[in-house]
């Protein structure tokens, strides 16, 4: 297997004490560098991370997933030798094999960022209502269509140093996914997507963002011009 020591996995963690150690251990078999950003969890996630072999960066208070990703990327990009970055969910729904495949493409192809998508192959395992909502988001967003992205809210992304250096997520909450899409189009990052598999376990379903949160995302996105500085 290729040497992955120039790769950093960024894992935002919020109240995932049950599973985070296993997720990290599993990923460590392939990727030696993992930074977990504990976003002010109250369930002992930090202790679970400490014993797992990942780097731990701890927000003193809960800020939101977008802020956690930004913190993790800032930490990772300051590490010597860091060339490739991966955002990876803490609840175990992403597959290491998908990341390896995405990295191979990122190393070989002239792209800056590869976004995971659930919709390139057979999408029938995705819960119907989720599928409808995610597809609607894509249908009403001209930007996504222009970039030929089919799944903006996939948490699995792989990108290079250029993107990591320029990344500035200002939406602390869940609006960061759309903000990353905005940055892709504004800063001209070369983007492509890769079919990935999401494991909808009972655990990840209970933790996953509820669809009603989509309202918050829309609102934040519509008004975010206010904090663009």
């Amino acid at each position: 297997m290729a040497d992955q020591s120039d790769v950093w996995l960024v894992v935002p963690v919020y109240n995932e004490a049950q599973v985070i150690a296993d997720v990290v251990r599993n990923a460590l078999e392939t990727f030696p560098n993992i930074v977990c950003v504990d976003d002010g969890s109250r369930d002992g996630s930090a202790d679970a991370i400490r014993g797992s072999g990942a780097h731990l960066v701890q927000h003193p208070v809960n800020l939101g997933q977008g802020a956690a990703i930004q913190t993790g990327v800032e930490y990772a990009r300051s590490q010597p030798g860091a060339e490739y970055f991966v955002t990876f969910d803490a609840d175990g729904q992403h597959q290491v094999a998908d990341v390896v495949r995405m990295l191979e493409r990122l190393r070989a192809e002239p792209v800056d960022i590869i976004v995971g998508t659930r919709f390139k192959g057979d999408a029938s395992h995705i819960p119907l209502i989720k599928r409808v909502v995610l597809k609607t988001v894509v249908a009403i967003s001209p930007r996504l269509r222009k970039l030929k992205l089919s799944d903006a809210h996939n948490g699995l992304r792989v990108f290079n140093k250029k993107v990591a250096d320029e990344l500035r997520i200002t939406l602390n909450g869940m609006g960061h996914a759309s903000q990353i899409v905005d940055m892709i189009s504004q800063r001209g990052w070369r983007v492509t997507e890769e079919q990935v598999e999401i494991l909808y376990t009972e655990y990840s379903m209970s933790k996953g963002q509820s669809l009603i949160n989509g309202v918050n995302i829309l609102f934040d996105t519509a008004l975010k011009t206010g904090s663009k500085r």
Partner: protein
Amino acid sequence: MLIQFLLIGAVVVLLVFFLRHHGTTKTAAGVKIGFALFLVLAAVAVLRPTDVSKLAEFVGVGRGTDLVLYGLVVAFGFATINTYLRFKELELRYARLARAIALRNAEAPKHDADLGLDAADVEDPAHSA
């Protein structure tokens, strides 16, 4: 009716203005001027209600009170947006502060020395944990 144009116009102009220029000194001054004007108008409305009624008739609203109410609704809307944007900005600063603290206190795993160099070694400490 004239009032409809005035109200909708006010809403649109203020919204665009706020979203475009939020956070600059100019806007901050604008907000203060707006507030001062609002106070003056409030005083006028109290002292000379008939003038307000005349104005109301002129723009096509029945009574002066109605005009004041409409104005209040618009003012409230903008106060809300202003507060919302300010909160967002505070939140962002707060996030940066928290991030700086987090990065300063970052903890590398204890077997740090091997980590970057040899992927095979990392299994060890992971299992002993």
